[in-house]
């Protein structure tokens, strides 16, 4: 594998040493990169494609990153570069997928939910059911909108990093996020059980 090109901001990137180690053939360094970033990649993948396919997206993300690491120039932090691959992999997975049977899920029977047990506190159970319904609603958003909303409103990433990840100007990111939020509000308003807010229109 090619030696690490001198990254412009390698000093400020906490992953620079591990990236250099991986490029030098040290799989232990790559292992540490996976351990360090697996959680955030998994969260983003699960929110975009759903939990069932998240593991596949995570694996694809890290393997792509591994094989393309010699193309990483360090112009942005390694994490942003990795999340760009993750976001693209998740969006590709969404495009490959057939439409999800969202409408078939009823409010009383959230998908994949365990049956309530006598020991489960009611509020905890309600939260879990609301969360599962919300995840399904989230997946009704257009994929590009979903990705930006996940990166900003769930992961709390700064706009600059989201612009890096999506390869879009910051103004486009903000516009897309605004549309994504409005779209999700409209989707959720259709479910008055969850929304519980008087219609403002």
């Amino acid at each position: 594998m090619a030696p690490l090109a001198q990254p412009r901001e390698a000093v400020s990137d906490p992953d620079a040493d591990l990236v250099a180690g991986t490029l030098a053939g040290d799989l232990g360094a790559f292992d540490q990169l996976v351990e360090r970033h697996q959680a955030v990649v998994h969260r983003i993948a699960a929110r975009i494609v759903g939990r069932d396919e998240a593991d596949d997206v995570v694996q694809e993300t890290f393997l792509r990153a591994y094989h393309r690491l010699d193309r990483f120039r360090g112009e942005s932090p390694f994490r942003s570069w990795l999340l760009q691959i993750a976001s693209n992999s998740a969006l590709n997975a969404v495009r490959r997928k057939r439409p999800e049977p969202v409408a078939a899920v009823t409010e009383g029977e959230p998908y994949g939910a365990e049956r309530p047990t006598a020991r489960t506190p009611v509020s905890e159970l309600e939260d879990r059911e609301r969360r599962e319904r919300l995840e399904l609603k989230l997946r009704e958003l257009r994929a590009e909108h979903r990705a930006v909303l996940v990166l900003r409103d769930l992961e709390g990433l700064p706009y600059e990093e989201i612009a890096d990840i999506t390869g879009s100007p910051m103004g486009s990111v903000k516009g897309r996020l605004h549309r994504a939020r409005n779209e999700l509000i409209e989707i959720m308003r259709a479910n008055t059980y969850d929304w519980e807010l008087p219609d403002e229109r």
Partner: protein
Amino acid sequence: MSADGSPPPSPAHHRLDEHLELLRVEQPPADRSLAPRIVRTARWQRALRAPVQVAASVVGAVIDALSGLIGAGRRGPR
């Protein structure tokens, strides 16, 4: 949701944020065996990479040579 110079969030946006908070506090569980599996796959893919590249180069060279011979044959002695 609006520390970015955009207009102040509407009540609907506030409500949406409350809903999203449910997702923020809950982390989808990651498979603990995934990281070792990724590293194992990277290891064997790396091991295969060099031989595959060599094989591809050899096949490419053979095709080039055959194309050259066939071309030369067609142009052959008149």
